[in-house]
Each structure stands twice: as structure tokens, then as C-alpha cells.
């Protein structure tokens, strides 16, 4: 009976390439991984947005309207609904002039109780050091 921690570090911009979407969908798939594991074994993801990746966290995305695809906003909300640990780098949002109220911080509208956290890079570094495997997306 063990838990393996996976750190998804999302650095790529939304919609330009598929990286951030795949990072989030893979993290969310941790919810069904038990079918492949022994009883009691688990995989626990943490999702960290750094660099240009913080742009995935902007509110009011219109992906369905413009591209007819689900938005990364919806994936972040689904992550929060599933109580995944979502960290957003404070220095990187500051660098891009993004205020915290422009970010997806909760999933209350779909019944989520977990919030995303804007944290200094040092906290993200600690999260990266605490995981068994890192996945840069």
C-alpha cells in the first residue's frame, strides 16, 4: 500500500500547442488509475503552472466559441472539483501583469470545494522536490 506523487509542471501556453491540455488531462486521469494498481496503491498528482503556463489559468476562456473545444478553464475546474493540488506561480503572474482576480481560483460553480493557490516559486520548488516523478508539459 503506497502512494506515488507525480508533479505536472505546465509551462506551455494554452491553445498554441497541446502540452498544457495533455498535462491536465493526464493529471485528472489519476482518479481512475486504481484499476491498474494493487489495492490501496495510489497516484497523487500536483499541478504547477509556471512561466507562460500561468496563462492557462485565466478566467472567461472562450475556447468553445472560437475553436469548438473544451476550455483549459474547464480542465482546471475539473481538477479542483477532484481536489487536485493546483499551484500557480506568483512571480510569473506578476511578470505578466495578471491580477489574482483574473485567475480561476475555484470551481464553486460546479460544486468544487478546493481552491487553486497562488504561491511563490519557492513553494513550487518544494512541491517539485517532494514528488516521485516530475512531468514537464
Amino acid at each position, binding site marked *: 500500500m503506497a502512494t*506515488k506523487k*507525480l508533479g505536472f509542471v505546465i*509551462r*506551455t501556453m494554452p491553445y498554441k*500547442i*497541446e*502540452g498544457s491540455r*495533455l*498535462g491536465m*488531462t*493526464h493529471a485528472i*486521469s*489519476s*482518479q*481512475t*488509475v486504481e*484499476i*491498474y*494498481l494493487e489495492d490501496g*496503491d495510489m*497516484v497523487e*498528482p500536483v499541478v504547477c503552472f509556471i512561466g507562460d503556463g500561468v496563462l492557462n489559468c485565466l478566467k472567461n476562456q472562450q475556447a468553445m466559441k472560437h475553436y469548438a473545444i473544451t476550455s483549459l478553464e474547464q480542465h482546471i475546474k475539473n481538477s479542483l472539483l477532484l481536489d487536485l493540488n493546483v499551484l500557480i506561480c506568483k512571480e510569473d503572474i506578476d511578470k505578466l501583469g495578471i491580477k489574482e482576480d483574473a485567475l480561476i481560483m475555484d470551481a464553486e460553480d460546479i460544486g468544487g470545494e478546493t481552491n487553486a493557490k497562488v504561491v511563490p516559486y519557492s513553494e513550487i520548488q518544494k512541491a517539485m522536490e517532494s514528488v*516521485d*516523478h*516530475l*512531468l*514537464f*508539459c
Partner: protein
Amino acid sequence: MGKLTIGCFSSLVGSLSLDFSVKLSEAAIQKGHTVDLWVSGNATMVSKKGQKAFKDYSFLAKKIQELVAAGNLKVTACEACAEARGYHKEDTMEGVKRFSMDWYLASSFTADRLLHIGGD
């Protein structure tokens, strides 16, 4: 000997990251390790049968089939990523499996090392 899990999202044509992933798999196997190769996103196309070799592009199908046949490489493609690209079950290269993304996370659970190569 250890187990290496490699996840790759990069395209078969247009990026050499998949080329690197397969060559790294081969090198690890030659050292006695086992390798799980997860291909997702554009990388799923490396597991499609019927690929043709051209000198301008990496041709990885033959090498993958040799390594899979030898028994130390498991290649699994993301089913949703494949279907989204019009690549169906009957198009899958012999010896390659197709599962959902949780298979990759499960593979990482038992891996001694995970190398994740994000894509394009």
C-alpha cells in the same frame, strides 16, 4: 535491473523527440532494463501500422517492432488521442496496446525512473 517509463507527446514527423525516445528505449534495453513507452497527443502516430520509410523522416516503426518482439519494450498509445486523429484500433501496429491516460500513471507507479517528453 530497472524499469524506465517514457511518456512522449511529440509528433512522429516534425520533431525528433520521438526519435530520441525510441533510441533511448533501445539503449536502456541493451543495458538490461525494461521500458514502457507511452505515446500520447501527436506521438500516437508512431504506433500506427503501415508507415512508409522516406529518407527525409525518422522511420521508427521497424525499430519499435523489433524491440516489442524481443519483449523488453511495451508501447501503449493513448486511445482518445488516436481516435481523435482518425487512427482506429484496426490501424494499430502489431504488439502495441491502446489504453486511456491512467495506464501511463499506473506505469509511472512501478517505474524506477520516469522521463516525460512534452510535445508540440
